[in-house]
Structures are given as C-alpha cells and as structure tokens.
C-alpha cells in the first residue's frame, strides 16, 4: 500500500439539515485505510445521517466528503464501486432464501455465474449459514439475518464497509460473533466505518473513535487518548471498621470519603506505582484493608464528561 493513496474517508465541514433542524453542524474527520473507525453517539445524534451521506444515499448540504478519494455527490458511482453498506435494519430480502439473496447480489454486481457460485458457497460457509442456505430469510434469527447481510455486503469485495449499528438488537453471543467478523475484515485489509451506541463495542473494535453529539463531534482520538483526557480513574478501598477507616483517611492524600460505607477513593491514572504507594502508606500506618479495587475510566466516563449525559440515553426516533 503506497502512502500516496488518499485516506479511506475524508470529511470536512459536513453540514446537513432537515428543514430548520441542523442534523450535522460542521463535522470533520479522516479515516485511515485498513483501520476501524467508530462513530459514537446517542440516538438522534446524526450517526445514521452521516452513514447515509458517506454511502451516497443522501446528499450533503455543505462540506467536502470524499470516500476513497472520490466526491460522494459528484462521483457517486465511483464511490459505490468500492463501498459496502450494512444498515441498521438488515438489508436482506425476506422472501428469498439466503442463497438467493447472495445470488441476487452477484447478479447486480455482474459477477460471472460460475465464479459467483463458488464465492456464495464460501461466504455461506464462513458465516455459518450453509444449513439455512435454502430457507427464506424471513425464518432467520436476528443474528443470522445480520450475518447474511454482511455476507451480501462482502460479495462485492468492498474496500470500505459501513456498518450502521451492526449489533443493535442482537443477543450477547451474536454481538461477540459480529465483533469477530469485524476483526476478521480488518485483518483482510478492509476499512470499517462503524456506528454504535455501545461504548464497549467502540472500545473493543475501533482504532479511532469520534463522539457525535447534537450534530457536532465533541471529541475524537484513540480509545486510550480519550480515556486519558478525562478524570475518573481511582483506587477504591473499603475498611473493616470505623477506626481503620479514620486512620486511613488521615494518611492518604485527599481521598474522597464515604464514612457510612467505610469507603475511600483515591484518584489515580491507574499506574502501578500509585497503587504500590497507597498500599505502602496504609501498611506503614498499620491499617487493615478489607478490599481494594482499581477503576480505570472507560468510554462511558468519557461520554458522560463530554456530553453531560450517560451514553445510554432513552431512545428517541433513531432516524437521524
């Protein structure tokens, strides 16, 4: 791969309004080839609108939006040649069987018939759908539909794949299976652009995370960078009795106190030296500790700090 190739996705000053409502209000980001980029945000934050614009389904009102170096508005067909899209609602044909759905894609991609047959069998096998291949998709479980959906997306060998909330509505086992699929795609060199409401998912999969809130990106960086930006890491200590608690509270530097539950919290960035220091101080003071826990900030803390709301907000209409 030469360094001269344009990034997989480059977005600058993207704006989109529906009537008087600005859904995207000046969004900028870049996605490097072969990486996973997660766009994170609550329902209604503009994630799906962003995907729809990148996938040539919607025209941007303003801004430069390039996918694989091509302008999504002026060179839509060139963009369509290199992308694959799996939307929030499985884009499979319920009245066709799994195999017929894939054959439909092969025909629309103008693949030679003989070639297509082999590729279809390989994909059915890879996504564990061989047994169900000749049943209509209407009979599939949520996880199977999502796997068929991804298989249909992959039939065209896209360079860049958009996954709009790929695990929404899936049970934990199917969610983990989907994560494995995404990791497999990246190993094959595909670029993955993913939206999710689940911080854990972004943390697990993404090289780069951007947080969208009210149509603007409120933060972006690697998961580690984002976590480093906010406080929230601490050592939690509990004590067997009030006297031990009082001694410890006097020894430690500026702990957060909770006398009722005999608990103290010491702020920390989570490194081992701090933990060792705290334990040594308590040892020297002869304080018995009942339990110790280390809390490192997760993306939930980041989200809360940046937007003033927990990540899992009540659901509005997921349309924009």
């Amino acid at each position, binding site marked *: 791969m030469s360094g001269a190739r344009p990034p997989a996705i480059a977005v600058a000053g993207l704006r989109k309004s529906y009537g008087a409502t600005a859904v995207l209000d000046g969004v900028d980001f870049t996605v490097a080839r072969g990486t996973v980029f997660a766009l994170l945000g609550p329902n209604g934050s503009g994630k*799906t609108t962003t995907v*729809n614009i990148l*996938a*040539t*389904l*919607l025209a941007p009102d303003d801004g430069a939006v390039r996918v694989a170096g091509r302008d999504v508005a002026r060179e839509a*067909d060139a963009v*369509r*040649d290199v*992308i*694959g*899209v799996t*939307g*929030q*609602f*499985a*884009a*499979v*044909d*319920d*009245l*066709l069987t799994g195999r*017929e759905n894939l054959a*439909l894609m092969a*025909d*629309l*991609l*103008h693949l030679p018939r003989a070639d297509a047959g082999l590729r279809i069998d390989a994909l059915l096998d890879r996504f564990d759908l061989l047994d169900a291949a000749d049943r*209509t998709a209407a009979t599939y479980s949520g996880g199977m539909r999502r796997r068929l959906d991804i298989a*249909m997306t992959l039939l*065209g060998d896209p360079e860049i794949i958009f996954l*709009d909330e790929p695990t929404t509505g899936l049970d934990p086992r199917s969610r983990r299976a989907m994560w494995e699929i995404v990791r497999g795609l990246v190993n094959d060199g595909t670029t993955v652009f993913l939206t999710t409401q689940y911080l854990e998912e972004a943390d697990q999969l993404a090289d780069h995370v951007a947080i969208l809130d009210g149509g603007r990106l409120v933060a972006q960086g690697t998961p580690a960078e984002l976590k480093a930006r906010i406080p929230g890491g601490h050592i939690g200590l509990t004590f067997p009795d009030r006297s031990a608690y009082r001694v410890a509270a006097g020894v430690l530097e500026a702990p957060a106190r909770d006398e009722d539950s005999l608990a103290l919290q010491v702020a920390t960035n989570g490194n081992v030296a701090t933990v060792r220091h705290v334990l040594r101080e308590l040892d020297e003071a002869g304080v018995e500790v009942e339990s110790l826990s280390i809390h490192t900030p997760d993306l939930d803390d980041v989200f809360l700090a940046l937007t003033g709301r927990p990540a899992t907000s009540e659901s509005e209409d*997921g*349309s924009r």
Partner: protein
Amino acid sequence: MTGAYPVRDSATMLRRNLLHLRRYPGLSLFPILMPVVFLLLFVYVFGGTLGDGLEVSGGRSAYVDFLTPGMLTFTVAVAANIVAISVAMDMTEGIIARFKTMRIWRPSVLAGHVLGNLLLAGVSLAVVIAAALLVGYRPAAGPLEWLAVAGLLLLVAVALTWLSVALGLLAKSVESASNLPMFLFLLPFLGSGFVPVDSMPAGLQWFADNQPFTPITDTLRSLLSGERVGSSGTMAVAWCLAITAGAFLWAVHLYNRRPGNRA
C-alpha cells in the same frame, strides 16, 4: 468498471419479483382468481336480466359478449393493484437502501416491478379469456384484431402498472398502498364496461363518456366483435400514452426522493 447495465439489471430485478410472486401466492392468485369470480357472478347472477336489457330476449349469451371486453380492463386494473402493494412492501425493507448504494441501473428496481406485473396481468388475462370462452363467449375477431387487442391491453397494462407503482411509492404503509389504487377497480363500472353508458343518469353519463376506461373498453369491444373501430381507438391509445408518461415521471420522482432507508 463499465457503466450501467439497464437490461441486465432489470432482468435481475424481474427474476427477484417473480420469485416474490411465487413465494407469496396470496398476492399472485388474487388477481388471477378475482376477475374469474366476477365474470361468473355477472354472467350467471346478473347476466340474464342485463342481457335482456341489451337486446330483446338477448339474455345471458348477449351479456357475455357485452361483458367480456369490460372484464378485460377490470382484470388489468386488479393486477395493477398488486404492484402497488409489492412496491410499498419493498420500500419498507432495508434492501432498497442497499440497492441504492450499489452501482446498478437505478430505475431497474421499478422496471422489475413493472415487468413482473405485466407478466402477471398477461396470465390473468389469459385465464379470464379462457373462462369467458367456457361460459359461452364467442368473439368474432380475426388474427389481426386479436393482435390489436393484445397490443391495446399491453398499453393499458403498462399505463395502469406505472400509475400503481407511483401510488405504491406514495403510500406511507403497505395497507394504504393496497387501498390507494382501489378507484381503478371502480372505473370500469363507471364506464362502458358492464352496462351501456346511455342507460346511466346524465351526470354519470358525462363522467363515463370522459374517462379513459370507456374508449378503451369500446375499442376492445369493437375489435373483438369484428366491428370498425371509431375515434375511440385514438382516444384509448392517447389516454394510455398520457397516463404512462405522467405516471412514469411521477414514480421516478418519488423513488429518487425517498431517502431509501426507513430509518
């Protein structure tokens, strides 16, 4: 990569729609059976009385000859209703959004629906003509007239199908898509399809004289009974072409306007 493949993509979409019709027999059997039921109803329940009104002691056999051309337009209208439902069903599925993110000939989705519905209308027409012959219909048309009948029915089917595609795209739900084109069922009744127009009250007669189904039915009736086609032939073709052009532009506009993603 080469450009668009209109024929290949439309053929692919047609295959998809034919599979749908096979998997969803409720949708494909209705337009085949319902016109036959109506034909039998009108011939055996109303036909004796209505036929006497056409000519003295004409009875059932006179009415079969009068009714059949009207039944043909009714059959095309019933088949067209189905395409509105299947288009509306499609639009509620995420797969349309997928099609729009692929480099395929954009109107191929609609073309597949139209072609599939024309085939369905063809089967329905063949069945209803066979049923009419069985209950005593004796057309006087020669091969040329039959060819003209087939040509005109094709024009009518294309026009009504595009109109129904547009109505299916306009509908907010599958339920309303099945109701919107209902007026197409009624129009043959409010024209020369089932009784002579001059037997109607003045206001209704004016409407019947000026709506498309009357010249279409009159032309079919003249062709099938081996009579000369008057000015109604030109009117019929003009109506079909005008409806097709308007409905096609409307449907394409609606299809492109829809975000293609119900989310």
